[in-house]
C-alpha cells in the first residue's frame, strides 16, 4: 500500500513536471551547448542569490520557461529518380506532440549543422533550400517520393557551417493531427550541373550527408507557471 501511495504521489509530481510517466530514455542524448549554457547561467544566478526572471530566456531573447531540443526523426531520400544535380535530399521530421496544448510557442529554431566548412575550395556552387511538407512523413514512398504540397521557405546560396532558420510561424500554423512538423531539405548543385561531372563535388556531398546534424530548438511559455508577480500566490 505504501509503494502504491508513493507511486501515486510520484505520478502527481511528474504531471507537474509536464511528464505523463517516468521517462526511460534508451540512451542519453548529447546536451546541446545552448541548453548547457543557459542551465549553467541559471545555476550561477541561484548560487549568488540573484533573482532572475525564469520566464525570459536572456540567451535567446525570448519569453519562455520550457526549452526543448527535438531530434530529427526523418531520413535521407535516395532514389534513381532524384535530380542528378541533387547533392543531398533529406526529409526532416519533428515530433511536436510533447508540447502541451496550454503552452505558448515563442521560438522554433531549426539548426542545421553541415559539419566543418568544406566548401571554401568549391566556390559558390551549392544552394540549400528548405521547404515545408504538408503530409505525414511516414506516407512517403522512398522509391518514388510523393510529398504532397511543398512550400519553399528559404533558399541559401553557398551553405556552410551551422545554419539557423526561424520556423516559429510555420510551427504555429502546423495543423498536422499527429503534431508532426515535416520539412524537405535539399542541397543542389547550382546551374544544374550533374554530380558525376565533378568528382570533388561528389565527395563533398557524400561528406555532407555523413556530417549533417539537424535539430529543432523549441521554446514555450507555460502561462500558469509564468504568471505576473502580482498574481502569484
Amino acid at each position: 500500500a505504501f509503494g502504491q501511495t508513493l507511486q501515486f504521489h510520484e505520478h502527481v509530481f511528474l504531471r507537474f513536471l509536464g511528464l505523463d510517466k517516468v521517462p526511460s530514455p534508451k540512451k542519453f542524448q548529447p546536451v546541446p551547448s545552448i541548453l548547457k549554457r543557459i542551465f549553467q547561467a541559471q545555476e550561477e544566478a541561484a548560487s549568488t542569490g540573484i533573482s532572475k526572471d525564469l520566464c525570459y530566456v536572456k540567451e535567446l531573447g525570448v519569453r519562455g520557461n520550457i526549452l526543448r531540443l527535438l531530434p530529427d526523426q526523418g531520413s535521407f531520400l535516395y532514389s534513381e529518380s532524384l535530380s542528378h544535380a541533387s547533392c543531398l535530399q533529406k526529409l526532416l521530421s519533428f515530433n511536436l506532440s510533447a508540447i502541451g496544448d496550454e503552452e505558448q510557442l515563442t521560438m522554433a529554431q531549426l539548426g542545421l549543422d553541415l559539419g566543418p566548412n568544406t566548401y571554401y575550395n568549391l566556390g559558390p556552387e551549392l544552394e540549400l533550400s528548405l521547404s515545408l511538407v504538408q503530409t505525414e512523413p511516414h506516407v512517403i514512398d522512398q522509391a518514388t517520393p510523393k510529398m504532397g504540397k511543398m512550400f519553399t521557405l528559404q533558399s541559401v546560396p553557398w551553405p556552410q557551417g551551422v545554419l539557423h532558420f526561424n520556423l516559429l510561424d510555420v510551427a504555429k500554423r502546423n495543423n498536422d493531427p499527429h503534431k508532426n512538423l515535416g520539412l524537405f531539405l535539399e542541397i543542389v548543385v547550382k546551374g544544374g550541373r550533374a554530380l558525376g561531372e565533378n568528382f570533388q563535388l561528389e565527395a563533398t556531398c557524400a561528406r555532407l550527408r555523413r556530417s549533417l546534424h539537424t535539430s529543432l530548438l523549441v521554446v514555450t511559455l507555460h502561462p500558469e507557471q509564468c504568471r505576473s508577480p502580482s498574481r502569484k500566490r
Partner: protein
Amino acid sequence: RAAVSTSKASCKSLCHRHQLFINFRDLGWHKWIIAPKGFMANYCHGECPFSLTISLNSSNYAFMQALMHSVDPEVPQAVCIPTKLSPISMLYQDNDDNVILRHYEDMIVDECGC
C-alpha cells in the same frame, strides 16, 4: 543553569529551516535527469509558540491562530512553513528522446516562518 539549558532545548524545537538534500539517485530519477544530480531543497520544522510568533517571521494570521490556541486548545497551533522559496532549473530527457531544460519555481526553501 537549568533554566538556560531548557531554553536551549526549546530553541532547537522552534520553527526553523532544516537541511534536506534531494538526491535524484535515491528516487531512481537519475536515469532521466541529466542535471543537476540533486539539490538542497531544505524543509521547515518546529514549533510556533504564541510567545515567539512575532520573532519567528510569523504572519499576522499565525499570531492570531496562536492567540486563539492559547484561549481554546481545540484550535491547532500555528504551523511552521516555508516563507521564501527559490527555483531550480532541470535538464532532462523525455520518452521521445527530447532534451528539455525547464525552470521550476518554489523548489528550494530559503526561509521558514509561522
